[in-house]
């Protein structure tokens, strides 16, 4: 594939565009909420009218040469805020404007609007304020101590991908279904009938709103056509206008229509609220292939036209950075990417291999576009051909961290275990970082990261957190109270159970807050059974409802427990007291002890049963604490094990640990071993990682860094393919390769200006190396070096 001139320009424009905060949405939503109308409406209808108001009044942007149209903000990379969810203070805006990494320009006008309009109205009444005011002191204590984070505090629930059905359905059809659902409401026997009618009314308004929004683009396109000099572009503009009149009102029938159809839906979702991971077209190769094939047979599209369209589509994602955070998170979290993860490959609903020509075409697009967003992954089943994996390795080799590799067979088993039917499971995949979901039928929310090492630290200190100087956990005793290692493990179990209870209580309140105050009638249209149930996506309307709590630091907590077991209980090399003194001193003056903890103690990641047993024990404790607990929207809590960048944050609030880690350094990430402790190579890492039962999770993350030398020829591709297939035969969920050398990274740290395009795999996603904090950069360099030795 060769990038067309048009796409080249759009791509460059996107890379050059400056990230800016736009006050447009904040202003519109405030105007709406101030109106008399807003006050009188039920919550779902109010949110639908707000959605309509936004789409009716926001600026329409059509870029030069674009084939796919629509921007969330007034122009590319102009990023809106969502004051009804969380309100940026003037100080936040200054932080965003001046922070070194991923800054967002905030001009004077925006500040003035915030000062005069937005802040006076929303202060104290944003959803975040509502959430924080309703949390218990225990929740606040654990949250401040760094036991867990809260996803819904600054963004709306998300992690959702569009399913099979919506790629083949227009909103006029949905309006029919809404009418049908309303006519079936049973006011005699269903106490919720009225609530449902309000929700369905809201959904209907949302349908009209998105069709109206598409028509506004059509109007603008026709207007532009009038003054366009080039006859070719004029024709294009007319064609695009016709498409915007057709979709998303009606089902798309061509590749162009399908991409534009999806893009309007995408914009709808991320304008309605700021859901986590923006939104995701999911199994894009499966959706596009039938229309592409039909068009090829008819001769209505050429390969060049196809690549032109796909290139334009790809750029659209890159124009949309993750909405900026506020408060301390604005300072800490500087990720640009919004975690849209396109899935390729996998299996069809009938279970046969789904890899098709479009899978390879899209891999080509990924390779040539080389953009951070959208992210991409390959679903590898035991039926996938080696050629598909080789093609993916061909891109992975270039060191830009995409695509990552997922195990379709595990994903399906995970979904089946959770009670999905086989077709929904096969239509599923992974979104966000590595999260398993039934695309188009499930509302699966990530609710927060949970620091397993912090729970152990509390276990060693009678539940007391030194840094925040308060009792955070349960009083299970101090380290030397535990007469045996088993006693310690039992205390750890109690501690985890107690802390998870706090988290789940919070989750169950927060879910209700979203159901009551922040329904999402538009997103509800897209996820199956919300219409027939007459219930919102945020209120358990989807066919399946899951809430995840993501465990973090499995490698670290395993090494901590193993070290205690080995050095204190089994070998009696050191006492609890001696260890505590060394930890309190952050090993200063106790380097010999630190040395032994690091170099002479078994570690997770080496296929060493002694160490790996603790990983399994922790996994089971965590699983038992979370799995199956009901959620307040009628779903179930599950676990997954992924960190994004939280292992850096959690590390920064934990003192020195018994595995020899210095205070405030990052924890291990995902289910990968602690940085640099895996001494036996990738097969041993895989063996250790597969000792936990991946099938009982909703996703795990394993990061393996490779020097480029492992990708040198066909034979090495075969070996890497075998490595992946072996991990997957052991039920591993996901593995990703970071191909890069430390020298390059170090130079990039020194001369960031020369490496503006350098992309590295951070955890479940890639990011610009320059945009990462220095500690995260250091960590990636350290890991790389280790790999090269």
């Amino acid at each position, binding site marked *: 594939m060769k990038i067309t001139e048009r796409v080249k320009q759009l791509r460059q424009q996107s890379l050059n565009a400056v990230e800016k905060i736009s006050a447009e949405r904040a202003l519109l939503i405030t105007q709406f909420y101030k109106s008399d109308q807003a006050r009188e409406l039920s919550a779902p209808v109010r949110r639908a009218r707000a959605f309509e108001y936004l789409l009716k009044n926001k600026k329409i942007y059509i870029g030069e040469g674009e084939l796919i149209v629509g921007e969330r903000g007034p122009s590319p990379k102009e990023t809106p805020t969502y004051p009804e969810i969380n309100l940026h203070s003037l100080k936040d805006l200054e932080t965003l404007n001046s922070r070194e990494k991923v800054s967002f320009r905030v001009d004077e006008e925006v500040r003035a609007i915030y000062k005069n309009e937005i802040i006076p109205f929303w202060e104290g009444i944003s959803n975040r304020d509502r959430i924080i005011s309703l949390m218990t002191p225990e929740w606040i204590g654990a949250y401040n101590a760094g036991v867990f984070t809260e996803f819904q505090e600054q963004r709306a629930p998300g992690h959702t991908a569009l399913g099979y059905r919506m790629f083949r359905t227009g909103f006029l059809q949905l309006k029919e279904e809404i009418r049908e659902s309303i006519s079936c409401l049973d006011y005699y026997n269903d106490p919720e009938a009225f609530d449902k009618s309000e929700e369905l009314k809201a959904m209907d308004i949302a349908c009209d709103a998105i069709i109206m929004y598409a028509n506004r683009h059509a109007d603008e396109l026709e207007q532009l056509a009038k003054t366009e000099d080039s006859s070719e572009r004029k024709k294009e503009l007319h064609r695009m206008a016709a498409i915007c009149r057709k979709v998303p009102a009606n089902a798309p029938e061509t590749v162009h229509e399908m991409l534009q159809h999806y893009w309007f839906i995408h914009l709808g979702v991320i304008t309605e609220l700021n859901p986590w991971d923006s939104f995701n077209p999911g199994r894009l190769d499966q959706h596009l292939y039938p229309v592409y094939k039909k068009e090829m047979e008819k001769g209505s599209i050429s390969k060049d036209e196809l690549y032109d369209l796909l290139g334009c589509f790809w750029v659209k994602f890159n124009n949309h950075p993750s909405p900026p955070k506020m408060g301390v998170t604005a300072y800490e979290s500087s990720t640009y990417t919004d975690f849209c993860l396109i899935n390729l490959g996998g299996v069809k609903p009938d279970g046969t291999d789904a890899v098709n020509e479009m899978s390879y075409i899209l891999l080509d697009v990924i390779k040539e576009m080389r953009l951070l967003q959208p992210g991409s992954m390959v679903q590898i089943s035991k039926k996938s051909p080696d050629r598909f994996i080789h093609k993916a390795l061909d891109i992975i080799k270039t060191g830009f961290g995409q695509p990552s590799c997922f195990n379709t067979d595990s994903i399906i088993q995970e979904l089946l275990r959770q009670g999905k039917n086989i077709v929904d499971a096969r239509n599923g995949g992974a979104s966000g970082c590595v999260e398993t979901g039934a695309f188009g039928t499930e509302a699966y929310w990530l609710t927060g990261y949970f620091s397993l090492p912090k729970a152990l630290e509390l276990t060693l200190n009678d539940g007391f957190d030194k840094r925040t100087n308060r009792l955070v956990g349960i009083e299970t005793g101090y380290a030397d109270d535990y007469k045996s290692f088993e006693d310690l493990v039992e205390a750890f179990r109690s501690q985890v159970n107690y802390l998870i209870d706090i988290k789940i209580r919070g989750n169950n309140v927060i879910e209700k807050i979203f159901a009551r105050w922040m329904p999402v009638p538009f997103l509800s249209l897209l996820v199956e059974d919300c219409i027939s149930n007459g219930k919102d996506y945020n209120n358990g309307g989807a066919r399946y409802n899951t809430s995840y709590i993501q465990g973090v630091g499995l490698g670290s907590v395993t090494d901590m427990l193993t070290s205690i077991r080995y050095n204190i209980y089994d070998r009696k090399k050191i006492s609890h007291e001696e260890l505590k003194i060394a930890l309190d001193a952050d090993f200063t003056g106790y380097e010999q002890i630190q040395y032994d903890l690091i*170099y002479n103690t078994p570690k997770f990641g080496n296929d060493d049963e002694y160490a790996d047993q603790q990983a399994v024990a922790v996994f089971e404790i965590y699983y038992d604490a979370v799995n199956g607990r009901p959620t307040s929207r009628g779903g179930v809590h599950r676990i997954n094990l992924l960190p994004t960048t939280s292992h850096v944050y959690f590390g920064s609030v934990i003192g020195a640990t018994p595995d020899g880690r210095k205070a405030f350094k990052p924890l291990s990430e995902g289910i990968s071993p602690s940085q640099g402790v895996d001494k036996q190579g990738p*097969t041993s890492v895989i063996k250790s990682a597969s000792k936990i039962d991946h099938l009982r999770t909703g996703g795990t993350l394993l990061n393996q860094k490779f020097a480029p030398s492992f990708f*040198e020829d066909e*034979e090495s591709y075969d*070996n890497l393919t*075998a*490595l992946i297939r*072996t991990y997957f035969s052991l039920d591993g969920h996901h593995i990703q390769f970071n191909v890069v050398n430390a020298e390059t990274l170090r130079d990039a740290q020194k001369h960031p200006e020369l490496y503006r395009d350098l992309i590295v795999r951070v955890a479940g996603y890639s990011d610009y190396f320059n945009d990462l904090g220095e500690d995260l950069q250091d960590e990636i360099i350290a890991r790389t070096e280790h790999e090269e030795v």
Partner: protein
Amino acid sequence: MKGLIFSVKRYSVHDGPGIRVTFFMKGCPLSCWWCHNPEGISPEPEKVVQKNKIGEKEFSIVEDAGKLFSVDEILGILEKERAFITHSKGGVTFSGGEPMLQCEFLIEALKACKDAGYHTAVDTSGYSSTENYRSVIPFTDLFLFDIKHIDDTMHLKYTGVSNFLILENLLLLLHSPGDVIIRIPVIPGVNDDSGSMNDIRQLLINFKTDNLKKINLLPYHKTGSSKYNKFNIPYRMGSIEPPSKGRIQELKEFFCEVGVKVKIGG
């Protein structure tokens, strides 16, 4: 019976087909100037000082270079890697040092590995008694066989031994059941001139049988030099630089005439 092994490498992908476990056996009758495993030369267990830093503080610990392994221990390690070996059609490789130096143990280990269903490979300098090779052949699926120089004087000078026995053993292996991959280290100033390379190529053309599957060109690299200090062995390669990519590519084409696949690296 136990074998003295100085290193075990998992995800070994350069010593035979697929993903393998390579056992590096201690002791070698040769002393090649460029040897990158100097810890494998002495047939005795040695102590080596390993230095690690914690912040600014340096810690030295004495480690064993060379530990005794029983055949069961070897099988245990392989069993842990079995899934990878099966998926990749890999196996086990005995390298060194010179594994044939511990021939009795090697036979026992190879036999046990074959019985357990693993593909077996022996990476050898060719310098051992012909009788030894005859006894190893029945349990070895693949020999990785080094050729360093055809000129005996040069061979003697740079490896410490004559190549007479080596070439005789090569002929034997090429006419026995196992496969053979020839490995040629490309050492600037020693054998990378066209005359020396031409001699090697001519010999391979003359010796070639169906057993000869592949030629590996192994470009000299310097990673061994720092190890020499640890073992107090003088490093004789001085500041010789690795051969250029261009030269290696030239040689790759040059050896294609033998009529088997030529690969740079293992």
